């Protein structure tokens, strides 16, 4: 078993597409298919869902994905590894058994990786070093806390005969590293190999972001058949070197440029990328084109892993209120500006709003309000957006009310009001000794 290992990535975030994963499961000739579906927000909302209904709190697309993919991977001898368990891996496991029953999938083993939920270990005295305070200083309701757990926690699940491995806050690249450690027998302190495995995981974990997704800039960086961009496949050798590719019939492309952009995506110091498994070092990575849609990487390394595990502590962040209305034609920008002034004035004086408010003129100046960008002509098509964040629902509703009332009482020609109130969260980082985060594996059978 020392030939290269073929691993696909079927999802790079919680709401990612389904059809590219099905293609990989059917045609990828894969040893494993990874679904990376957890972010700070999805996890926090998972905790909230779980509190409302103990059978919820995992990725809402879990059943849809498994129904479409698991019969194919099970038939092809490919394992699925995923963190779609989010805030409730046990419930995700039961849901997976239900999918197997309905699909007539017999004799499958599901392994759950548990122990990342450390909500019970968080106290008012828990330090939040990056924020310079403790949990008790935050003055918000604690929603949940999860430690980023690594390959050590996942390996025992791979040592079972499970065709499906589900966890919660499994660190994104660690899911790939665990598969590689299991296949090649890399030891837990071979930092150079662990760093190389993390490189593979890091490149793969965002799915299409390495195969031409999130890359196209027409006329400058064109991508073929982007509507059907294929998700990535990594072919990893026992020495940790990797080739990134995709299914030949899928859209998108794998080039030196798509790989470079992903290499440092959300990376700060390339020589020191912290994971639960290793401090990975990408600074001397070599990238070599190996023909159409094949790019090879080698030279990743690593040093000692951090001695503590990072924990995301999520708190209730109140309500984000957004109200929008559009103006078009001559003088549209002046009318939208007047509408913004009226709304802000009335929110302050009539509704007593003291929180920060943000007024964007979408089409003229919105995303880049701090830079001197996008100041278009006065005669255009512009959308006013008024946004604020509130603990109090009445104030959030006042934002929507005031923008909507512009329809009759604001400047001329306003139309297309839409408003929404979205629950939001606030997260802070804590750090726990590894000994405080014991993990375990639970095995279920279909």
């Amino acid at each position, binding site marked *: 078993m020392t030939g290269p290992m073929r691993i696909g990535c079927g999802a790079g975030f919680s709401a990612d597409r389904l059809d590219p994963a099905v293609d990989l499961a059917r045609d990828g000739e894969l040893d494993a298919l990874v679904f990376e579906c957890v972010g700070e927000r999805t996890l926090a909302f998972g905790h909230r869902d779980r509190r409302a209904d103990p059978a919820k709190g995992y990725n809402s697309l879990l059943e849809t994905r498994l129904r479409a993919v698991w019969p194919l991977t099970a038939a092809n001898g490919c394992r699925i590894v995923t963190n779609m368990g989010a805030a409730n891996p046990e419930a995700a496991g039961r849901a997976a058994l239900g999918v197997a029953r309905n699909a007539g999938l017999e004799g499958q083993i599901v392994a759950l990786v548990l122990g990342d939920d450390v909500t019970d270990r968080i106290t008012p005295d828990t330090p939040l070093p990056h924020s310079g305070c403790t949990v008790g200083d935050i003055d918000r309701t604690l929603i949940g806390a999860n430690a980023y757990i690594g390959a050590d926690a996942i390996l025992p699940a791979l040592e079972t005969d499970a065709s499906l491995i589900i966890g919660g806050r499994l660190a994104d690249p660690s899911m790939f590293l665990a598969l590689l450690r299991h296949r090649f027998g890399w030891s837990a302190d071979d930092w150079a190999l662990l760093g190389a495995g993390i490189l593979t995981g890091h490149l793969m974990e965002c799915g299409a972001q390495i195969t031409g997704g999130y890359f196209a800039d027409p006329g400058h960086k064109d991508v073929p058949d982007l509507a059907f961009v294929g998700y990535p496949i990594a072919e990893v050798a026992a020495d940790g070197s990797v080739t990134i590719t995709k299914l030949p019939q899928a859209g998108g492309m794998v080039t030196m*440029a798509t790989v470079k952009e*992903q290499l440092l*995506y959300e990376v700060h110091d390339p020589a020191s990328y912290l994971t639960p498994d290793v401090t990975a070092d990408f600074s001397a990575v070599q990238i070599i084109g190996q023909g159409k849609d094949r790019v090879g990487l080698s030279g990743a390394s690593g040093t000692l892993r951090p001695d503590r595990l990072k924990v995301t502590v999520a708190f209730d*962040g109140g309500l984000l209120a957004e109200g929008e209305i559009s103006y078009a034609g001559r003088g549209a920008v002046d009318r939208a500006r007047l509408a913004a002034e009226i709304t802000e004035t009335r929110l302050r004086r009539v509704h007593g709003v003291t929180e920060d408010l943000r007024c964007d003129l979408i089409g003229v100046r919105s*995303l880049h309000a*701090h830079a001197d*960008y996008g100041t278009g002509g006065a005669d255009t098509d512009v959308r006013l957006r008024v946004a604020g964040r509130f603990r109090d629902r009445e104030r959030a509703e006042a934002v929507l009310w005031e923008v909507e009332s512009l329809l009759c009482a604001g400047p001329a020609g306003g139309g297309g009001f839409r408003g929404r109130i979205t629950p939001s*969260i606030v997260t802070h*980082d804590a750090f726990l000794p590894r000994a405080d985060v014991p993990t375990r594996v639970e095995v279920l059978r279909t």
Partner: protein
Amino acid sequence: MSRTAPLREIAHARAGDKGDTSNISLWVKDPADFEAVRLQITAEAVRQHFGSQVQGTVTRHEMPHLHGLNFIMTSALDGGVNGSLNLDGHGKSWSFILLDMPVELD
């Protein structure tokens, strides 16, 4: 003869976030242009370009063998995606702010 071009003509970039910190990696397409970019697109120049959006520091890491630069900007996302009122709280669109910087080429 020298000419001035926006970075977008000679380079590509991708932005990402961690909390209130934004990072943008910048990759020069033609190795012959890398030195000009390295000399002109300094951490300080990027700080100036982003103006009041960046309340913290800008640090630059170099990947010369891949003709890449990585800019780390702290206190740069209005508190981060969970607290920001910006439609693009992740600052994902900022790669194209960076690519608007002019660079003088030989």
